[in-house]
């Protein structure tokens, strides 16, 4: 959308296709939409891509390695809400798996401790 090809408009002009056109006017993420810093990974099993748009495919190609939802929004320059809706679609088709903080192997205390250690060592 914003990369490649001739650019007649600079980025400040905004996207030529309004972001919500990409998600067909859905403004509220579906229940399958991942959270802000949930980590998404392309699913181990191959799935069908029929009916998915280029943005879906782009997101899918970017999460071959685990990546946080906010990073995907930043990397693609798509609005966060739009990315969450698109990822919800991919999740419904079992093309991605989503890991939230509750799925992480560490306790809250160990996360706090490792962040504290990390900050002190900066």
């Amino acid at each position: 959308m914003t990369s490649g090809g001739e650019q007649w408009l600079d980025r400040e002009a905004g996207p030529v296709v309004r972001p919500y056109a990409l998600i067909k006017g859905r403004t509220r993420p579906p229940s399958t939409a991942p959270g802000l810093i949930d980590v998404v990974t392309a699913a181990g099993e191959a799935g069908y891509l029929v009916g998915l748009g280029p943005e879906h495919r782009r997101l899918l190609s970017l999460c071959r390695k685990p990546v946080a939802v906010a990073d995907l929004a930043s990397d693609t320059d798509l609005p966060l809400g739009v990315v969450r809706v698109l990822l919800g679609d991919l999740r419904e088709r079992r093309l991605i798996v989503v890991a939230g903080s509750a799925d992480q192997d560490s306790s809250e205390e160990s996360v706090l401790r490792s962040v504290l250690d990390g900050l002190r060592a900066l």
Partner: protein
Amino acid sequence: MAFERYEPAAGLAAAPIVTKLLIAGGFGVGKTTLVGAISEVRPLRTEEDLSEVSVGIDDTTTVAHKRTTTVAMDFGRITFPSGVVLYLFGTPGQERFWFMWDELAFGALGAIVLADTRRLADCFSSVDYFERRDTPFVVAANHFDDSPRYSHSQIRDALDLDLDVPVLLCDARKRESVKEVLIASVAHSLARHRARATLTTQRD
């Protein structure tokens, strides 16, 4: 096309441990500067349906064609050698974006309320929010060249903070200063987490 399949890369990499801190405070208090002083800054925006967001706040009758509004967010990322990734999210300053806060605050390690001593009232709503939500937070007064020098206790009194809420003075432009604020915030969250764990154990 109809049978196109997506084959993922072989072998799934281990998911990183990700967590987040919130940076709150009034508009123009230095949240963007603070995030940029300590972390890699990344562009992040969200786009919201204006008609839902601003009922009663914006008069949309004059701009009936504009249905959505773009909100740029402060977004930083620090990746530690241990593999843990800490995200910093600046909460949107304007009150009409409050609906986003619950999502931002959900699962956050804690919050930093950045205050400008020239207009402390701007951070009342952030303090209220985190108190009500029971999110551990610290208050960091960002020093501006023309800001009056207040003591920690004066700031604490002015904001009516509980005694256990750490209050710091900082310079959001300086990395070392911001680092101290982040450390204080996470240390406070850890102390509170441990205190609660002890309470729970005693009750059992």
